[in-house]
């Protein structure tokens, strides 16, 4: 197995674990964490492709990862803000119980 394939497999596995968490956890915050993990797995792919790809001088993979980290930070801030706002209404972060559209 080539190093690139190893990284891709690892990234796929981490992505799947994150996805499992997103699909199965009840706690909204942990679902958000799962999304972060999936983003990170994607980042790992970018870096691996940049490293082993045909043109590492272009820096595209690194740039994408940097922007992705920046956007993930924004996403986490807004996501947790939304969870806090929801919690204030429903007094729970359990996604199985947050099932109405009414505020």
């Amino acid at each position, binding site marked *: 197995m080539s190093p*690139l394939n190893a990284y891709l497999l690892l990234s796929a596995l981490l*992505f799947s674990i994150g996805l*499992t968490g997103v699909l*199965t956890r009840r706690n909204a915050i942990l679902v958000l964490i799962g999304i972060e993990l999936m983003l990170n797995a994607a980042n790992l792919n970018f870096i691996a492709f940049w490293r082993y790809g045909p043109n590492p001088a272009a820096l595209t993979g690194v740039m994408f990862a940097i922007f992705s980290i920046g956007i993930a*930070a*924004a996403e986490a801030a807004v996501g947790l803000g939304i969870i806090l706002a929801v919690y204030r209404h429903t007094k729970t972060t359990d996604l199985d119980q947050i099932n109405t559209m009414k505020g």
Partner: protein
Amino acid sequence: MTAFFLIVAALTIAGTAAAMSLRNPIHCILALTLSLVGFAALYLQLGAQFVGFTQVLVYVGAVAILAVFAIMMTRSANPPEGQSHQAAFSSSWLTGGAIAAVIFAVLAWCILSKSTPMQTAIQQPDVSVNQIGDALMHKFALPLEIVGVLLTAALIGAVILAMPERRKTL
């Protein structure tokens, strides 16, 4: 395929799995930080020093702490006595797990069945911070500006979302 890669990969997988499966949300966050540091180590191993350090700074220093604060504020760290034995997983956990497993199987099949085109002579790409800075300021100037605007918007949005709501006077 060095021993270092195997150790870091094992740690990252363990951290990720623990972050998604532990019962106590705080333990999940702590496992998450292990996983994120593992990611950073993988980036470092791939030669992306700047991304690795940024990863630690942003994720461990900000996102994990933010999540901890959110857990503290929503009191999901210590569930009330009555529901302490309540399942941490959704009632449809079987379906979710199955979907994820299928996706992993498809991805793994794709990765393993094709030999990806690769540069033959793998040399450690020597990327300095100056190059990244140059690229950010010239080639990627517009995305950088957009990310800046996005972060400002997110900052304001998060503050507004988290602000105590004003009672409607009318």
